[in-house]
């Protein structure tokens, strides 16, 4: 009348077919499980280390500039050959012990200092723009997914409208007026890094939220039917409480993944916009404006062109791999 023990055992193991060691799963939160999966993925760990190194470097750079280890504006024009268009006199971009990555043609500023300090500005811009996009995207996504009806329709059309906007064109066309407008609310003038950076962050962020809204809305549609949300509603919780106390904590995984995937997009956007003359201008370095200047020298002084391109490529690839790894770890059911 009852099943045999051996049959019971078979059923149990069949239920837990993807767990190697059932003991290991016991008492672990989903976060710990995800972290475990992430740690086992070598590529993700490598990219995490690279991103961590960039971040620590970016945090240290202002300090190193202050103590004089990095000199992103000090010129050494005596290292340049004035009869060949002021490119460095020696090979590999004028590399030496004091300037391991060489010097900038024209000014003779240390390339390593400019790139290192440039990472700080590039990452700051990408981070700020990502935060703007994520905050707007998440809030609108929750509201849209939970409220439904007319609100959902309006936000949906707003997403369509923003996506169909010629973003780059607008960024360029409005750049000088936009920067001047930003400068009015900020200390300093329109040629300061602050006003230019602020404008760049604002526009990148304001055009970057639609994909995030769509993603979050999809997640919210499944969450809002869950019992704890029903319960909160029955208890008479306010909308604000339901949005931010009940639903939001369940969204941190897609938000984190979106964040690690918008960061590299904005790092390369910063470089592209520098090329078009938008964003922070020299003498303040960013990876983008150093690369833009170096493109002119891709033949005459290849190493000057090589280093910024390499640094941008590494950080963009690492962030992307990190984002992929996080997604795999947090959502193991997704196909690889």
């Amino acid at each position, binding site marked *: 009348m009852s099943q045999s023990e051996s049959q019971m055992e078979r059923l149990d193991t069949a239920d837990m077919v993807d767990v190697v060691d059932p003991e290991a799963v016991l008492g672990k939160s989903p976060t710990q499980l995800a972290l475990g999966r992430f740690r086992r993925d070598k590529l993700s760990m490598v990219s995490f280390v690279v991103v961590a190194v960039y971040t620590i470097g970016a945090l240290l750079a202002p300090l190193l500039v202050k103590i004089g280890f990095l000199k992103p504006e000090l010129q050494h024009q005596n290292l340049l050959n004035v009869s060949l*268009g002021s490119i460095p006199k020696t090979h590999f971009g004028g590399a030496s012990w004091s300037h391991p990555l060489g010097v900038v043609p024209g*000014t003779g500023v240390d390339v390593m200092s400019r790139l290192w300090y440039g990472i700080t500005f590039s990452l700051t811009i990408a981070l700020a723009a990502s935060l703007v996009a994520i905050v707007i995207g998440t809030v609108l996504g929750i509201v849209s997914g939970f409220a439904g009806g007319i609100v959902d329709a309006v936000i949906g059309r707003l997403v369509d409208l923003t996506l169909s906007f010629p973003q780059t064109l607008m960024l360029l066309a409005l750049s000088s007026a936009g920067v001047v407008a930003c400068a009015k609310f900020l200390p300093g003038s329109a040629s300061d890094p602050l006003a230019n950076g602020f404008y760049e962050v604002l526009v990148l962020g304001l055009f970057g939220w639609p994909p995030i809204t769509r993603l979050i809305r999809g997640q919210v549609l499944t969450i809002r039917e869950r019992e704890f949300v029903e319960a909160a509603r029955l208890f008479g919780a306010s909308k604000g409480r339901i949005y931010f106390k009940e639903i939001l904590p369940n969204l941190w995984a897609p938000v984190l993944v979106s964040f690690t995937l918008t960061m590299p997009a904005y790092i390369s956007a910063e470089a592209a916009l520098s090329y078009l003359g938008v964003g922070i201008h020299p003498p303040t370095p960013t990876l983008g404006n150093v690369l833009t200047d170096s493109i002119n020298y891709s033949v005459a002084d290849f190493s000057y062109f090589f280093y910024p391109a390499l640094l941008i490529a590494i950080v963009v690839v690492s962030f992307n791999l990190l984002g992929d790894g996080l997604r795999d770890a947090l959502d193991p059911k997704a196909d690889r």
Partner: protein
Amino acid sequence: MASYRKKALALVAAASMATALAACGSGGGSSNSGTKAGATGGTLTYYIKAALEHTDPQRTYVGRDITDWSRTVYRQLVTFPVSDDPTTATTPVPDLATNTGTSSDSAKTWQFTIRPGVTWQDGKAITCADFKYGASRPFATDVVTGGPNYILTYLDIPIDSKTGLPIYTGPYKSSAAGTAAFNKAITCAGNTITYHFKKSWPDFPLAIAALHMMDPYRQDKDQGDKSNYQIFSNGPYELQGTWDKETGGTFVRNPNYKASSDTTGSRKALPNKIIFNIGKTSETIADQLIADSGPDKAAVTGQSIPPSYYSQITGSVASRAASVVSPYTDYAVINFKRITNVKVREAIAASTNDTGWVTAGGGAKSFKEAHDIVNPAVKGYQPDLYPAGAGDPAKSKQLLQEAGVKTPYPLTFTYPSSDTMDKQAAALKQGWEAGGFKVTLEGVADQDTYYTNIQAPAQKDDVIWAGWGADWPSAITVTAPLFDSRPNLTPSSNGQDYGGYKSSAFNALVDQAQGSSDLDAQTKYLQQADQVLAKDVAYVPLDTQIFYMLRGSDVTGYKTDAASNSYPDLGVIGVK
């Protein structure tokens, strides 16, 4: 020559738009010095980056276009001949006139006789009435815009007190009194044309050889602004079809041009066809001319090689590159509203790192350090006015101390931003900061409004970048228009006197120069005036631009000279 303004902006735009990875330059293997005079025939291509704003003679004000048109389609009363000697090349020779003009009444009246047998491209003779009509067009200041307007201030026509302009308002619409005054100011007697001026104009022949403002113009061809891109020739070439603003135009031989009517010896007109190709970037042009294949073998350009290409100019490519000092000077003006203490201004001049500025701009092949705002090729140049060099920070600090100001003294520097200019400004900043200043750089990204902004009387920058080229080779077209406060300073604009400089001593010397009836006396006064500017530190000269241009291997007789504003001289260039 040219209002430097346009050219400066074009340069800057180029730098900011810098594109394109360099293609691999093949040496090509052809070897040709390009200096021996060539035979007639072939097609020459002339690469230009940015669209021309006008081809109308009275509206042409860019040095390159002035010389191109002089040699091909627009003959002048007198012109500058092709010559390696700068003095000869800037001494007018008779062209459509039989001599270089006779003056009387202390150079207030000038008379020219028109050469018999000179014709337009439709075979009709060029008459005195055509010259008079041409001279009338700049007065239509609402239609014929963009060109030089010296004639408005010189020609003996009363000024309308309401507008501040002459009562004659051009051939399209003018009061009867205005027309009558104009008819009195320029008179025709048979083939002789006489100009009556309000004040002495001893260098009038220089002015009309250097500009096209007094060129003849056929009244029946004039459609006002619609004629902006019309070219009705009287020179050895004529336009085939129409001029396209974006892509240029093609010139073919003008069958009605008789070489016998031209004694200048400066219009050999060797190529059968000249194609003006507009729209390629400086980088692309350099790539193509380095590669030297196909039609690029018979090509010249008005664009300098970008500094990042200098290392590719070696071997046979180097033999196709020429480097000449241009007539254009860049300088920094000091804002007199902001920096009133002369010791502080002296400190700025003392700590200006001119060597760094030149190095950051690409070095010896891009710029030459400047000692005077007046170009070395212009009468009145003084080589010892400013020391140039890398600057003297110690002296600057001492001057600031004598001035009794708090150091570091805050200073802002404004300039049109570009990759190159940003570096040059950084070099100046480093020099000034070593000299006791705290510098803020204000790079202006919007090139189109740069000059409008710095002309505003309320503008707040301490030091202002600007550029200038003499309109004709006399200092009277340099320091006088740039620093005479009377025509420049108005409540709404600082005019060309960007720093708001005002000096009665300077103005008096300009008056004496303008009142002189002979060129040497005028030059002497202008040099004294320039010394006043240097004593007051009204400006700090930065550089004289160098033109470093490539050409194709089939180009013969290549020449750039003072007469051609240092651009390729189409009067003698041919193709193999």
